[in-house]
């Protein structure tokens, strides 16, 4: 089997990823600017006693907004495969590997990139020293980005394999929004029925849906949560790439 040079793969990835980003940039720029302004205001009011609660609430809302955007990106890719638009690009010398890698790259740039722009840049702008001085905050940011990467990669894998927009969205909603809620409800029911339930077990189950939750139950598990999300992301990305090379037909 003849192998393409890494150069031609990288060229294909960069052209296709830039094209995907170009198509979605306008929507996400608006989202980032809006979220950035809201978050900056929340950061400023965080100095007053009640402001910290507002900041937490705003952060959670922004996080939810970005998680929804992760679902949207993955389902857009699935839609491209489902409708046959992918054939337009794959009928050129672009390889399947480059096509899938470009979607991964573009999705990660959109989800993790916009997230960084919204939450990290205002922090640096308001108090540049605070970010570097607080190692826990740095770790937390790394963990949050890890979680966004984790969802992006897993939903990209789902989109590529099922090639169905609606199914990808449904899996995304379950995983990101319903899954954690169901886990909590099951936990509450179990505790009501069986009494004391092992907290570690609950954290592990919730951690499947939200790796960050591991560290919420126990701050010492922050590193574990980061390692879990990035490791799973890497493994799943490897699976996607192998699948694209061997089996992706359009």
């Amino acid at each position, binding site marked *: *089997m*003849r192998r*393409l040079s890494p150069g031609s793969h990288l060229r*294909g990835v960069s*052209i*296709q990823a830039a*094209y995907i980003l*170009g*198509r979605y940039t306008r929507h996400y720029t608006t989202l980032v600017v809006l979220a950035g302004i809201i978050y900056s205001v929340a950061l400023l009011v965080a100095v007053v006693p009640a402001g910290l609660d507002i900041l937490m609430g705003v952060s959670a809302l922004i996080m939810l907004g970005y998680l929804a955007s992760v679902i949207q990106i993955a389902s857009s890719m699935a839609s491209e495969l489902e*409708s*046959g*638009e992918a*054939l*337009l*690009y*794959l*009928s*050129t*010398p*672009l*390889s*399947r590997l480059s096509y899938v890698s470009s979607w991964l790259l573009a999705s990660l740039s959109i989800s993790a990139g916009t997230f960084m722009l919204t939450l990290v840049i205002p922090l640096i702008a308001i108090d540049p020293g605070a970010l570097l001085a607080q190692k826990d905050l740095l770790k937390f940011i790394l963990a949050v980005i890890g979680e966004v990467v984790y969802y992006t990669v897993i939903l990209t894998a789902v989109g590529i394999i099922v090639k169905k927009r609606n199914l990808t969205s449904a899996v995304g909603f379950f995983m990101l929004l319903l899954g954690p809620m169901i886990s909590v409800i099951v936990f509450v029911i179990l505790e009501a029925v069986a009494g004391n339930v092992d907290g570690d077990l609950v954290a592990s189950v919730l951690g499947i849906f939200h790796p960050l939750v591991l560290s919420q139950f126990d701050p010492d598990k922050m590193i574990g949560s980061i390692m879990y999300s990035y490791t799973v992301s890497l493994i799943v990305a490897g699976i996607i790439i192998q699948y694209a090379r061997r*089996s992706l*037909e*359009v």
Partner: protein
Amino acid sequence: MESVIYFEEVSKVFKNTVALREASFEVPRGSIAGLLGPNGSGKTTSIKLALGTLRPSSGLVLVRGMEPWRDPDARQGVGFLPESPVYPRTVRVSQLLEHIAKLKGEDWNGAKRAASLVGLDKLLDKPVGSLSRGYLQRLGLALALVGEPELLLLDEPTANLDPNARVEILRLISTIRDMLDATVVVSSHILPELQEIVDYLVIISSGEVLDYGPVEDLAKRYEARMVYHVSTRNPRIVARSLITYHYVEGVMLDTGGLKVYVKSTHHRALEEVLEGLAKDRMIDGYSVATGLLGEIYEAVVSG
């Protein structure tokens, strides 16, 4: 003659459906090949296998000497127009053309050349979603033509078009072929459309390739009528002379001369008569335009 497309015992199975069964055929360089068969016969599958977007379940597919499933470089120099193209509706025509040009290693000038070949140059700033069906098909052709390909794969290029757009697209295909000197593969189930443009046939039915070859050879093999184009400045006199021969089945006035229909079993007799007329300077020359595809197809399918 060198083959641009070569299939050797190629099968493609989708779950429990056999789309193509041990298909073997080749398409020589420089021909306009018609991939002929009813809907669901395996035409689109064959084109996608040649394009490398489907993996053959077994057998060997070569395009320009390369295996397209394994080697994306096989698609360099190949243009493709799908049966039902799906385009991003919000991007501008120019953006899409430029993007495909980049993927093919071409610059904006290459994209512009393709757009002007199909008459899209005035619509470059329009969003793709605003184009009519006829113009969408032109866009598809332009995208296929970016990089001036040496092989064009056109899957039902006139499907879903109104009669006027159909005629325009078929005319465009002929013009493009002459301009680019490319090998063209056109799949269709509409015989009269292919009649005017193809010189080579691959006949598929129920996933099996029944026969393939130059139209002229197939017409002779299956004793279908052949159509000769005779160049003459005295069409009426020549026509009157030709219809006296029992094997001449019809004569029609055509641009610059006549169209003469003859059973392939008598093509040599007709050619002798035409040589005689040429010696007497009654005609300027003649050529085999094509065999009648409908008759060839019927004969091939009925075995």
